[in-house]
């Protein structure tokens, strides 16, 4: 045996040591190799779910310590969870990776960007360098451009915009579409403005578990103070965090319904509060990992699209539970930009194969990643597929014909 293999470590130290039984379940069958987007691009066994499980098993047996190299492996992951979905042995891969990251945080072996992120969120309650006052800057270009009009004391519905859509100009189209839709449906809604804090997902996903409870408490109470019955979110990761993580970190009752905008738009369409007018073109839909696989919302966005008269809908070959990640998940971009963009290009190929003119996403992150990949494709081969977010499509449909008539 190799000398390295004899390294003995202080056993109690790591959370992963408690997961030895779960790790033993991995039969090394290799099924996950066929699905992991990272492996498909790198063909690097050490980055596969199988490889990751074997490394953790070695750690749990005291054969190996957490090293920088191991840290690199665990942060090279889009958190798409396709591996978990397809693992026939039922290995809780997501939980194992999460545990590993949390251990890595404890031993101070994690990518530098996480410190920057942590710092920003702690100082300004958002993931950017801006102060949280800027949360409503995107409102200014609207006809009713006064931010104060969008923040009420009380409202039936709260729309939680999310950091990226609040601060990144290229995503402003999403919240701008949503408020116009809510207005046109005469919904009594409010934004949280400065009182909206980062949901905590970027930290949770990086393995910083304790950070979430403050965020959860603050945000839940902010919504409660509006006496809202319903919370709507447009970012799938915020949605996932609110729906599936917050209950773990909040003792009190969450006494309002939580919906993703795709679910809420469908409801408004069904209640005839939104009237969809004809559009044309062939449309396909990309399931964001955090909305689809990780939260189980598959049909509502499709149903909204299909409710638009005049369009032709086509699914991607790998869809719903089997949808491939766009590469933008899990903060991979900040760890390995080149790899994330390779994954995005392969997603773009899938989309092009459907022959659609438009690909709809329900996530500002997927939207950005896929759009960048499509632009590259356009340069290379002159194929053109328009990338838009569901609320933007819906707004187009609501306004359809207006300019012409």
């Amino acid at each position, binding site marked *: *045996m*190799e000398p*390295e*293999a004899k390294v003995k470590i202080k056993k109690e130290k790591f959370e992963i040591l408690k997961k030895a*039984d779960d790790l*033993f*379940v991995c*039969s*090394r*069958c*290799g*099924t996950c*190799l*066929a699905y992991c987007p990272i492996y498909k691009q790198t*063909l690097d*066994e*050490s980055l*596969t779910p*199988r*490889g990751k499980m*074997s*490394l953790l098993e*070695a750690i749990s047996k005291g054969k*190996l310590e957490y*090293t920088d*190299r*191991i840290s690199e*492996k665990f942060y090279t992951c889009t958190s798409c969870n396709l591996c978990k979905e397809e*693992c*026939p*042995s*039922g290995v809780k891969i997501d939980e194992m990776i999460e545990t590993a990251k949390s251990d890595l945080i404890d031993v101070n072996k994690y990518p530098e960007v996480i410190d920057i992120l942590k710092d920003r969120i702690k100082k300004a309650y958002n993931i950017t360098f801006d102060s949280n006052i800027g949360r409503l800057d995107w409102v200014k270009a609207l006809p009713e451009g006064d931010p104060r009009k969008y923040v009420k004391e009380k409202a039936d519905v709260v729309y939680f915009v999310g950091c990226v859509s609040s601060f990144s100009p290229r995503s402003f189209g999403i919240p701008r579409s949503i408020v116009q839709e809510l207005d046109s449906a005469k919904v009594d809604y409010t934004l949280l403005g400065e009182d909206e804090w980062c949901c905590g997902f970027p930290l949770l996903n990086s393995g910083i578990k304790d950070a979430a409870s403050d965020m959860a408490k603050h945000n839940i109470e902010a919504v409660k103070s509006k006496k809202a019955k319903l919370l709507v979110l447009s970012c799938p990761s915020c949605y996932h965090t609110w729906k599936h993580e917050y209950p773990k970190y909040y003792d009190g009752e969450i006494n309002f319904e939580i919906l993703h905008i795709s679910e809420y738009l469908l409801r408004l369409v069904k209640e005839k509060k939104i009237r969809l007018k004809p559009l044309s073109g062939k449309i396909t839909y990309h399931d964001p990992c955090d909305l689809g696989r990780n939260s189980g919302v598959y049909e509502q966005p499709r149903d909204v699209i299909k409710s638009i008269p005049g369009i032709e809908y086509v699914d991607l070959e790998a869809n719903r539970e089997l949808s491939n990640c766009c590469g933008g998940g899990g903060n991979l971009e900040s760890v390995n930009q080149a790899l994330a963009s390779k994954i995005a290009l392969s997603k773009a190929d899938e989309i092009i194969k459907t022959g659609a003119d438009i690909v709809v996403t329900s996530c500002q992150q997927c939207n950005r990643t896929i759009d960048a990949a499509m632009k590259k494709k356009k340069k290379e081969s002159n194929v053109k597929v328009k990338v838009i977010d569901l609320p933007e499509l819906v707004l187009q449909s609501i306004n359809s014909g207006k300019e012409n008539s």
Partner: protein
Amino acid sequence: MDKKYIPELEKIVGPENVITSFEERLTYSYDSTRLEYLPDVAVKVRDAQQISSIIKLANDYNIPVTPRGAATGLSGGCLAVKGGISLVMVEMNKVLDINPIDLLITVEAGIVTEKVSKAVEHLKLFYPPDPGSMKSSTIGGNIAENAGGLRGLKYGVTKDYINSIEVVLPTGEIVNMGSNTVKAVTGYNLVDLMCGSEGTLGIITKATLGLLPVPADKVSILAFFKDMTDAAKTVRDIVAEGVITATLEIVDKVTINAIEDFLKIGLDRTVGAMLLIEVDGQKGAVEIEADIVMKVCSANNALLVRRAKNDKERDELWAARRAALSSLSRIKPSTILEDATVQRSKMVELINAVNEIAKKYNMLIGTFGHAGDGNLHPTILTDLRIPEEAEKTEKVIEEIFNATIALGGTLSGEHGIGITKARYLKLELSKPVYDLMKKIKNSFDPDNILNPGKMECNWDF
């Protein structure tokens, strides 16, 4: 450990393709047997020339070289049991040529099996061998193990589709074997020798594979039985009636329940056995054959027999069958899968023998397999972390092998000997045959550098 050869490896393939860190080597230390042997170095290769240079280096320094495909092997073939170089083939994954007129495709050996059929889908052609692992396994691994699949009864196994191969010999020469003609008898049939050689005689770098037209029609049939005996009799009778089905898979109760736990597709958990059958061919012929199959099932007391309702259900059923092995691993932490194969006519006896053994040792065994080929996969469900269980498992394996050989069967139908079955070779081979195998190995690989320690046993022990 003297690793002077590492810089030379780096010169051959580039430093980024030479994997030396302990962490990363660990991930090249296992396969689906779940055994672990740490290679001294893992090397990702891109062409035959690089491999040839590595082999020459290995001969100079006397370093073992073990080819590695996707490491889905079930007999430990790609494990570097003597250390040395793990030769990682997965980057050699290109389709080199498609020849629809002669029904041939030429690929690099590291290509994923399923990708071969995908590459010719648009031409309405397919590559028949379809091991359960085809979404991950490589063609090189398939050839080296002579992998079978679900369609073996009608379409045969990997060796039936290998026209020619490019091989790097253990002495470094790059050679071609076989011919892309329909017939060829020039010289010894070395392609067949390489096929199933488990990476001990040469490294396959390219292969020209045969294709077939996708059958015009197919029907999937599902039948439930009260026990495995009725199901096995049905298998025998279907073939005796002159119907060669494309697939004829058997699944027992333990496995049905494991699959249902995983996939939740509504299989009846109470039945004792299930047959999954597919007939394919020309349109009218398929209907006639499907009728015969259904009649034979009924005549053998099937509790229920019906066709798959639609394509979706059909796909679900086959996905279910493919998930059999991995689903079983949900029941117990260790799954030891055997590969015992007998003539179809002896299958009932083998099933009974396995049941007896399971009872005798009070061991849970889930059995499924390619019933049409007489190839069963009795899978021992255990926990090898517990010493008594591990010991009992050994005994169970040995008794299953004894029973198989007594019925005129073979140790392995498709998963190979590798290291896990090596010590049972004596049960099946005679001494002169074993010696002949060693002589063949020696004439290919005089320095014994290629995959040493495989298909090898201590005969006198």
